[in-house]
């Protein structure tokens, strides 16, 4: 890590830790917590979709498994859903194993489609095995903690862990191998890289931390049903938009993307009512056209744009 990056990281941590001192209103805290949840999912997705280039349209599967792991603990056994924060990620990682073995036989768009189907399969299965999951009635839990600030710090801790682990993976041999696989799978094979194994090494932590976000979501929101946590558009596709907006295959991209996306989402929802999704369609087009590498990915280009504008202004004077 360069000195500048280290300083930026410390500054970010300080700001994140100190925010609750200044922002106390429950609504604002709620938005911040949502941002963190999405940052965790985005960062996890980015490891598989961004670095390893295996675009998953089914991350809701892992999110939902994590959420239900926490919910079912309480529903069936009366165990505190906080234990789900341990069980959820493990369950999601275990679920990801056979999925990886099967789906990584497919490449590119075929993999994406298989994952899309997978997320839907999970949703439909969880809707229908009512004896286990309580079906569409969902699971309601009684939260033990009501202070938003505590949730905020727990979520922040989870995000910190996700970012740290992702950073370590990406900046190791595994990271180089994942990027090699993304850039050219045949070339990677010719360099002796066991591509399926390494794709799984990206999928497992990716599923693990998505499951962590899911388990936290259950604890925080206190109600889940399959149509919420296994949702195709509001989870699987949304995470892709979050990462695209922030910057694919960048450390901070998903976090930045989550911040902007959630804030924009709130603004549009309060001003445009049910037409708010239209704006996201436009947003996607704008991203693809003007910042294809996301905000963090195009940072140097954006900086240049700003400085050029300044230069032209001063030149005009």
């Amino acid at each position, binding site marked *: 890590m360069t000195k500048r990056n280290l300083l930026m990281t410390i500054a970010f941590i300080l700001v994140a830790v100190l925010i609750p001192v200044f922002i106390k209103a429950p609504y604002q805290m709620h938005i911040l917590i949502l941002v963190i949840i999405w940052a965790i999912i985005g960062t996890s997705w980015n490891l598989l979709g961004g670095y390893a280039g295996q675009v998953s349209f089914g991350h809701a599967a892992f999110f939902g498994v994590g959420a239900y792991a926490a919910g079912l603990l309480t529903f069936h056994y009366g165990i505190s859903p906080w234990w789900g924060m341990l069980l959820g990620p493990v369950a999601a990682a275990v679920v990801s194993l056979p999925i990886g073995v099967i789906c990584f036989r497919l490449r590119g768009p075929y993999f994406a489609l298989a994952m899309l189907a997978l997320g839907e399969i999970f949703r439909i299965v969880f809707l229908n095995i009512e004896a286990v999951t309580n079906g569409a009635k969902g699971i309601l839990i009684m939260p033990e903690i009501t202070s938003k600030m505590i949730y905020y710090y727990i979520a922040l801790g989870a995000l910190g862990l996700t970012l740290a682990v992702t950073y370590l993976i990406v*900046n190791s041999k595994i990271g180089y191998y994942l990027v090699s696989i993304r*850039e*050219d799978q*045949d*070339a990677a094979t010719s360099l*002796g890289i066991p591509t399926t194994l390494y794709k799984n090494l990206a999928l497992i932590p990716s599923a693990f931390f998505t499951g962590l976000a899911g388990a936290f979501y259950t604890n925080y929101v206190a109600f889940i049903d399959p149509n919420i946590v296994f949702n195709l558009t509001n989870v699987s596709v949304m995470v892709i938009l979050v990462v695209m907006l922030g910057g694919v295959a960048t450390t901070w991209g998903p976090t930045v993307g989550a911040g902007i996306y959630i804030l924009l989402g709130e603004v549009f929802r309060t001003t445009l009512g049910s037409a708010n999704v239209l704006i996201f369609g436009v947003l996607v087009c704008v991203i693809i056209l003007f910042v294809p590498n996301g905000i963090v990915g195009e940072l140097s280009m954006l900086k240049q744009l700003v400085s050029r504008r300044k230069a032209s202004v001063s030149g005009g004077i």
Partner: protein
Amino acid sequence: MSFFECKKITKKFGGLTAVSELCFEVEKGKIFGIIGPNGSGKTTVFNMVSRFFPLTDGEIYFKGKRIDQLPAHKICDIGIGRTFQVVKPLRRLTVRENIMAGAFLRTGNIGQARHKAEEIIDFCGLQKFTNIEAKSLPIPLRKRLEIARALATDPELLLLDETCAGLNPKESEAAIALIRRIRDTGVTIIIIEHIMKVMMGISDKILAINFGKEIAMGKPQEVANHPEVIKAYLGDAYA
């Protein structure tokens, strides 16, 4: 036991026999050339050796061990590196990172991989381009990068697929010099090439194939004067 040996290797794509009962041996430390007209099955031979395609029939031995059952990524691990005719650079990685990706096969340490990459960059004369992304390199340098990346995996046998195709005479001279330097470090080379001048100059032994079958094998001059080879390249009138 020879260093590398193919015994009656055959590859059929449906009804088309791309390579048919091809046999050849390669001696350690030598440059072995494979020539043949377009579509004669040269690259298919490489794809079979590097296990990108499964064999329909036949056996391949490397250092006395049978290798035609191994998974594709193991081939590099046991010491057979390859380049691609249609170059496959890791586009958005720099030249150094491309080569590091190869070097990681023998080390898990980033510092060591980087050090190894620097050595290879010096060896291949890519110093000026170390930090340039592979996608912005011109073709001659991409071809050189392919070789560099394969070298980083410490191969004992290197498969070069048309490394000089599309290069101007000066560039291909540089490529030949590089291939010779690689051979001088003790690496055995199998090379596919169209350009006869290149092949005549550097090969110790040449195999000529057409329609997937051997038509001649031997010293470069013998093969070049072989009537079957002339017929395959220039037509019946010249044979």
